């Protein structure tokens, strides 16, 4: 995607604000926003539009929730709330300051051990949170693998070999497609090597319509890649595009097609 017009028409900035892009697509949009400063206006306007939409969906919570949030932060954050409101000293007398200082020192001494204990507990809690997070990630990864396995064992799947084009004849890919569950998985046996600024992109081809841009992906060791399912697709095609994807396929870099 080379021009501001292409980027605007692709809808990438809208998808970026909605937070529905892949990691690669997000970083590509961030590069575009730096490369083409004129897109900043679009970006800000889209954010403002979405903020207004969110305001229209306001839900008024119960009274007292804000107090509960403040207490929750005080109990759970190491960054305690400063109730002083920005440190205005105003009319405090020197004597008052002196007494406050002394009192502060005494308090610090008395509370020192209590803080030590508190910090130890917080450290343990943080460690626990890290382990819990690792555990959740492992469970999620395991569930994803089980989901792939479950899909691949489904007897209703159509497993279709993708026909490579002459320029990419070494490509070996199998598309596992299931119209009942509306899911697709790509089994990667051999894919061409691409540059760092490139990515693979899936296209849906239907009779009498322009190709519909679908997933943009790169390979990070996966053998099975989940892909979107587009109802009514006659043929799926895979091309090599600039990272972030395109709105129109680059036919000279078409690596293969499969009829479904």
């Amino acid at each position, binding site marked *: 995607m080379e021009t501001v017009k292409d980027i605007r028409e692709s809808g990438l900035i809208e998808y970026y604000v909605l937070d529905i892009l892949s990691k690669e697509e997000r970083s590509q949009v961030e590069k575009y926003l730096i490369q083409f400063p004129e897109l900043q206006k679009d970006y800000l306007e889209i954010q403002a539009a979405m903020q207004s939409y969110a*305001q229209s969906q306001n839900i*008024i*919570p119960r009274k007292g929730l804000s107090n509960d949030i403040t207490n929750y932060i005080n109990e759970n954050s190491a960054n305690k709330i400063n109730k002083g409101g920005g440190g205005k000293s105003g009319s405090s007398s020197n004597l008052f300051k002196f007494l406050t200082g002394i009192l502060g020192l005494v308090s610090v001494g008395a509370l020192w051990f209590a803080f030590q204990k508190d910090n130890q507990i917080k450290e343990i809690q943080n460690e626990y949170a890290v382990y819990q997070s690792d555990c959740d990630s492992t469970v999620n990864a395991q569930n994803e693998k089980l989901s792939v396995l479950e899909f691949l064992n489904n007897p209703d799947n159509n497993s279709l070999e993708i026909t490579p084009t002459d320029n990419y004849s070494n490509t070996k890919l199998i598309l596992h497609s299931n119209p009942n569950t509306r899911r697709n998985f790509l089994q990667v046996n051999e894919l061409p090597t691409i540059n760092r600024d490139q990515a693979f992109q899936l296209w849906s081809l239907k009779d009498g319509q322009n190709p519909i841009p679908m997933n943009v992906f790169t390979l990070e060791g996966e053998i099975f890649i989940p892909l979107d399912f587009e*109802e009514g697709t006659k043929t799926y095609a895979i091309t090599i595009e600039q990272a972030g994807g395109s709105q129109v396929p680059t036919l000279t870099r078409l690596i293969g097609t499969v009829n479904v």
Partner: protein
Amino acid sequence: MQLDQQIHDKILRRDQGGLQLLYDNYLNSLYGFAFKVLRNHDHSEDAIQKSFLKIWDNIGQFNAQKSTLFTWMSRIVRNTAIDISRLKSFHVENTSDTLDPLVHKVGTSQINEDSIDVKNLLEHLDDKYAIVIDYLYMRGYSQQQLSDELDIPLGTIKTRVKKGIAILRNTLSKEQKIFLGFLSLLLLTLLFNFWKL
């Protein structure tokens, strides 16, 4: 935006006033995100408390060059709510998907910012666009999930997202122009009366 800068600076200084500004200006909108995902006030409150703690602790990571404060905060709330919705305990408690009667309908909630007529904004937005935006933006659905849920082709979802946001942008821009026009007229009238005196 000056307000966002003020909130950011105050929270960075751990000033309670920053929290108060957040509550006054954004709590209802952010609560809307949590409730859209969770459909339950107890869980939404839990999500909001956890989200505000994350905002409080991670305000230093917010980068105004990358997004507005609201965009940043809304992502935190939505992702926290989605995490809660994935917990087993959430599914056990929430077998029904009916909307809570306390939920404010579109355009009837309290509006408090920038003189933008949100009700008018939504009147311009056809339901077919509003639904797509609602599911993707507020509820954190992927385009594929939405395509499956609504039984609409993925290409149509993409088209409706773009069109819907374009309508919102145009309406918002017109609202701002009308507001500025009104302000200019008021200023001119005042100047004219002053000159007559």
